[in-house]
């Protein structure tokens, strides 16, 4: 029997018919479809009993209460803690995505010592013992050479036990160079200090306010405590409370506001003065507060009436006179109106004239230190460690001027001036810093003027990062001593910026640390105890947790049970007396007169060469503080902000037409500080002549989900220093576009 072609085809037909009549193809198809759902590499959370632990999120300064859901020892979900005074069950994208950072590939898993050049990413693991010994040897060398002031430390905040331990270490070591990262905390502190007497931090009773006037504050874009503000924004809508947003572009906050008033960037102070002018001229102010509780009003009014011209203000701000009058009238007619400022998230301290002018509006309504108004909160004095005893080396070191010149004759009003550090280092005649500690901040990435910072970084011989994740500052450091992620350790989290009651949240471990990490405060205690004498004596705790428990004393038990300690004795806040020299609210004291003389420095570059104005903007969908976006948050970025790896540059269609650029064109943006390739996005929500770019992109770290996505807008911006305060004011930069 010979199989010819036809027999072979017949065999095939038989096989096909038989196979069809058998379960094989149907079962195989079903199994393959199930197989695709059971890939071993697809992450599947364990099944089992859920447990819940309350803690506090530390990914921004919002201090939200969180409830962490676990199955076994695995964190599977983070939700807002119900009933928490800050966020009452709400949570932001970043907090929600914390597990992706906790279990992510960017975690620094053990102490690392740089092997290659800075930024190359070549590291060798080092034991904790050797790492701490190496830092100790260098510190000891500084003290033996009588140069303790050549140690500096940068932290994200100066509140809470851990930052305060770092400050304490530097003090007893002999360095005045403890530096806090810049933000509107600086400018609000100074505003209150100048007008109401300090020291205090600002609190807003938005819950009882009935009119909100925002000078560019990103109410739903991350300003102060993002979830609190988000919830407040909804409450205002429910109660028909008017919210006016004054901003150069149609941000999310502007889009959701009752009224959006576009304004030329950098002219907010003038507009606030214009509104004040109308209120004073029309006698729309609070006579009792002004007459009985303030000082210098008459002089201030005389000068305001003489110098402020509404027509001129309308011209420079781009806001029509009628609108200025309308806002002034509405603000004056409200019972408890609050005016706020600080652009976007409030990462840049900004213009002090603006802060003072805006706070003046609150004062004109007498809405200071009263319900529904703006209050000055005294710091909770729960950190009452014994005074440090300084030895001769420390005393000598502490007597030397701060490296950033804050709180000196040059800049008497500032406590910290981080933004000045790069300039100082680049202009140094002899080495000023030998060693830098960086804690919970990413200055290498997040300060305006990246090129200058990169250059200045080279002037610091030894940089120690305490970061839990590989951020840019860690990448360009010499030694990484990773602290546990915030879900793995105890810590106190003090009052978030802008909250009206003094409170302390308790951050607590929800799982055992995943990696070979050590709390930064424990590193500090061990370092201190290696020294003899006063340094060791100032750190007599056995470890950080003991220090925290002893510091919180009777509050510890409450906080363990409740998750936070809250001082709701409102009267203490609202009845706070003014501690200025006059004992009254100051409209015009010596310092404020000095501030009036300040003029905003000219932006670098000529208008001919750079005809456009670039402004950065913030979004809740892009983390831009000490933490970068985890994958889930990046997935939520709109494609008119980031398209694949290209960042989109917002430009008004009228400006685009005049430049001959179209939607999605690739262009090169050039500023006096840098250049980058970006994609055009036509947006009618931005004023003609302006262009805007999102903050928080263009990372050198972050793995596949973030690395190389977009451009860091700080690389295009330049630092603008306030002559009065020394604060960073980088609100915009001149720019030009060119087709590529």
């Amino acid at each position, binding site marked *: 029997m010979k199989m010819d072609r036809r*027999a072979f085809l017949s065999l095939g037909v038989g096989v096909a018919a038989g196979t069809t009549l058998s379960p094989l193809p149907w079962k195989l198809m079903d199994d393959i479809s199930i197989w695709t759902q059971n890939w071993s590499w697809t992450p599947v959370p364990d099944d089992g009993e859920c447990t819940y632990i309350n803690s506090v999120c530390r990914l921004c300064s919002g201090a939200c209460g969180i409830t962490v859901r676990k199955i076994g020892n695995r964190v599977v979900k983070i939700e807002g803690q119900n009933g928490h005074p800050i966020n009452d069950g709400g949570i932001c994208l970043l907090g929600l995505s914390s597990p992706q950072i906790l279990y992510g590939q960017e975690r620094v898993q053990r102490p690392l010592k740089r092997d290659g050049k800075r930024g190359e990413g070549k590291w060798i693991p080092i034991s904790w013992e050797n790492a701490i010994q190496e830092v100790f040897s260098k510190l000891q060398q500084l003290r033996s050479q009588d140069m303790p002031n050549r140690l500096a430390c940068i932290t994200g905040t100066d509140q809470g036990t851990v930052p305060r331990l770092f400050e304490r270490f530097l003090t007893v070591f002999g360095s005045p160079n403890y530096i806090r990262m810049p933000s509107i905390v600086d400018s609000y502190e100074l505003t209150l200090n100048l007008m109401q007497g300090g020291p205090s931090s600002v609190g807003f009773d938005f819950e009882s306010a009935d009119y909100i006037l925002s000078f560019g504050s990103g109410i739903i874009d991350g300003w102060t405590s993002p979830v609190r503000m988000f919830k407040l924004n909804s409450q205002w809508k429910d109660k028909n409370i008017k919210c006016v947003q004054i901003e150069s572009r149609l941000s999310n906050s502007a889009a959701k506001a009752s009224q959006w008033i576009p304004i030329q960037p950098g002219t907010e102070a003038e507009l606030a003065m214009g509104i004040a002018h109308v209120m004073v001229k029309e006698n729309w102010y609070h006579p009792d507060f002004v007459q009985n509780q303030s000082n210098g009003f008459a002089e201030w009014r005389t000068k305001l009436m003489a110098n402020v011209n509404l027509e001129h203000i309308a011209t420079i701000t781009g806001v029509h006179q009628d609108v200025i009058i309308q806002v002034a009238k509405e603000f004056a007619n409200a019972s408890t109106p609050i005016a706020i400022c600080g652009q976007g998230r409030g990462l840049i301290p900004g213009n002090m004239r603006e802060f003072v002018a805006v706070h003046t509006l609150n004062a004109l309504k007498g809405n200071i230190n009263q319900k529904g108004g703006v209050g000055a909160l005294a710091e909770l004095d729960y950190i009452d460690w014994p005074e440090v005893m300084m030895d001769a080396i420390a005393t000598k070191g502490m007597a030397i001027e701060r490296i950033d010149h804050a709180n000196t004759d040059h800049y008497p009003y500032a406590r910290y001036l981080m933004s000045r550090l790069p300039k100082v280092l680049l202009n140094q005649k002899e080495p000023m810093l030998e060693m830098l500690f960086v804690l919970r901040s990413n200055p290498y990435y997040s300060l305006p003027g990246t090129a200058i910072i990169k250059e200045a970084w080279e002037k610091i011989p030894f940089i120690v990062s305490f970061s839990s994740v590989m951020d840019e500052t860690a990448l360009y450091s010499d030694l990484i001593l990773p602290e546990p992620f915030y879900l793995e350790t105890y810590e106190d989290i003090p009052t978030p910026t802008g909250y009206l009651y003094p409170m302390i949240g308790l951050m607590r471990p929800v799982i055992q640390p995943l990696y070979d990490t050590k709390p930064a405060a424990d590193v500090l205690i061990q370092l201190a105890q290696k020294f003899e004498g006063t340094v060791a004596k100032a750190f007599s705790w056995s470890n950080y947790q003991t220090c925290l428990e002893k510091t919180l004393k009777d509050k510890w038990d409450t906080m363990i049970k409740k998750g936070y300690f809250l001082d709701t004795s409102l009267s203490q806040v609202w009845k706070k007396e003014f501690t200025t020299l006059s004992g009254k609210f100051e409209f015009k004291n010596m310092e404020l007169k000095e501030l009036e003389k300040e003029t905003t420095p000219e932006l670098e570059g000529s208008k001919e060469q750079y005809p456009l104005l670039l402004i950065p903007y913030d979004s809740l969908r892009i983390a831009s503080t000490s933490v970068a976006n985890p994958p889930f948050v990046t997935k939520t970025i709109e494609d008119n902000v980031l398209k694949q790896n290209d960042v989109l540059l917002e430009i008004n269609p009228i400006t685009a037409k005049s430049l001959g650029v179209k939607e999605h064109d690739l262009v090169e943006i050039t500023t006096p500080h840098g250049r980058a390739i970006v994609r055009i996005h036509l947006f009618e929500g931005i004023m003609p002549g302006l262009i805007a770019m999102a903050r928080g992109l263009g990372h050198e770290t972050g793995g596949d989900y973030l690395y190389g996505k977009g451009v860091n807008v700080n690389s295009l911006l330049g630092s603008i220093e306030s002559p009065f305060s020394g604060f960073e004011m980088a609100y915009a930069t001149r720019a030009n576009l060119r087709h590529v």
Partner: protein
Amino acid sequence: MTKGESASTNSSRGSGSIIFLFFIIGLIGSLVVGWIIFPMLLYSEKKQPIDYNHAIHLDAVDNGCESCHFFREDGTFSGIPKLSQCVDCHGEVQGSNPEEKRFVEEYVQKETEVPWLAYSRQPDCVFFSHVVHVKTAEMKCEVCHGPIGSSEHSKEYEQNRITGLSRAIWGPSIAGFRKNSWDSMKMDVCGQCHEKETGSKGPCFQCHK
């Protein structure tokens, strides 16, 4: 008909038979592969780590299946018991059963969870709420799981080499025929029951989250 034509017709008939024969070979061969060899190849046989006697346990407890397979306070189902539950009774060897002795020595004393093979494990995309079916709809466990409570030995775990799941999901019949309600745990079985009891198979997202 010429001689040549006759030869050609004979040859054609012979050729036709051969073609048919090959068709039959192909047909029967593939039917044998599809119905007999394929199921043999598809499943691997595994034994449970401990030969578990449900019957003896069910006699010893007061609350039936829920004595060990209980609902938590939040309504979630505990599933296969963890070692900590077994230890309540089996901290020490109680009887003469060699499997119990092995369980105590290999798992209880070493504080190691038993790697039970779950017959009813579904793909992760399938969401199933036991509490809704058992408490709200008052269904008996046997409806889906069969008379497992009366078994004295653990049955063989036939693991599908492609999906990694138990044969209990598809059912004993490779053709998908069912004699009993517990013979399969496929989606169409859920759908049939839902249609009968609620009038609708339900939307996709009811079970596929």
